């Protein structure tokens, strides 16, 4: 008897214990963590499709400068490089926070999330100073179609990062107050997915907008 239980434990993910055809007929719903994660993954993909519309708009309008400045006159690649490193490191610390949540280690979770938050805020600060600088030089979003597309695309990413930071602080507070409950674990997983997806979109932004745009 003990042998059969042991044998089934390896090839029986649903713990059906020796009712082999039950796995075929009554598999039942997937665990909630998988359903939630998959649903959020679908949302992220739809978010990426929305960003692709902003990218298409930008690519179509990039030469329509209406006699105003173009990208190579406006962009400061050193600032963009620092922003990129900040966001990459925040993705890394977010991954560490995810691992800490899985092994239910509160101090490491809070430290990694705090690091993610600081890196994200530094990114937002740099982006805000860049926008303020452009507007001060008379290159605001109303100057030309190119700048409208630029501010919508990069600003939309910035808004996502801001929303991500609010979510991050909420997760820190929830873990502090309620601990690692199953539902909070799912929220942490979704947050990590969201933050990594933002980093993927930033890769497209710095490549397409800043690096290609800095070519004269």
């Amino acid at each position, binding site marked *: 008897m003990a042998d059969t239980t042991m044998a089934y434990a390896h090839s029986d993910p649903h713990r059906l214990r020796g009712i082999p055809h039950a796995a075929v007929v009554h598999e039942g719903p997937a665990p909630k963590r998988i359903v939630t994660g998959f649903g959020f993954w679908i949302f992220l993909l739809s978010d990426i499709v929305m960003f692709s519309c902003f990218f298409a708009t930008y690519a179509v309008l990039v030469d329509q400068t209406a006699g105003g400045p173009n990208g190579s006159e406006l962009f400061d690649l050193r600032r963009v490089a620092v922003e990129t490193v900040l966001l*990459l490191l925040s993705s890394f610390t977010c991954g560490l926070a995810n691992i800490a949540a899985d092994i239910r280690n509160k101090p490491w979770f809070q430290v990694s999330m705090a690091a993610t938050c600081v890196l994200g805020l530094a990114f937002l600060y740099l982006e805000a100073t860049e926008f303020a600088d452009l507007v001060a030089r008379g290159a605001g979003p109303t100057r030309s179609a190119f700048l409208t597309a630029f501010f919508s695309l990069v600003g939309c990413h910035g808004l996502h990062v801001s929303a991500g930071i609010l979510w991050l602080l909420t997760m820190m507070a929830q873990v502090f107050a309620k601990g690692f409950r199953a539902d909070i674990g799912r929220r942490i997983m979704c947050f990590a997915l969201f933050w990594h997806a933002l980093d993927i979109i930033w890769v497209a932004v710095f490549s397409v907008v800043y690096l290609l745009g800095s070519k004269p």
Partner: protein
Amino acid sequence: MSDQFSEQHRIDLAPGDEGEGGVGLRVLGYVVGLGLAILLTATSFFVAGTDLVWQPSIPVAIIVLAIAQMGVHLVFFLHITTGPDNTNNVMALAFGVLIVFLVIGGSLWIMANLNQNMMPMDQIMQMQR
């Protein structure tokens, strides 16, 4: 028969979740991902500003490096793999990528076509007077 079935039908993984491995291995995965991402980013920024390569190849190089880096992020940070427990996640991703290519490629194609075939705007305005 039943063993074969359960071999093919292993439990699914949520996107972002990893299969096996201890904490050390998982942290190592993120370290490798971060290293590759920084390497690709540095290459991108270097290629964008260099005079060492044939200039018209630079945009292509930047796009290729960007796609490679997105792949690195997907594998090492989002843990989207080709494993049997990841089929649903990969199918959703493939559909998303299809739509992204249709939207961006289609827009660029149509707008370039219009630009080529339409009269410049000032001439249209003159004809309407």
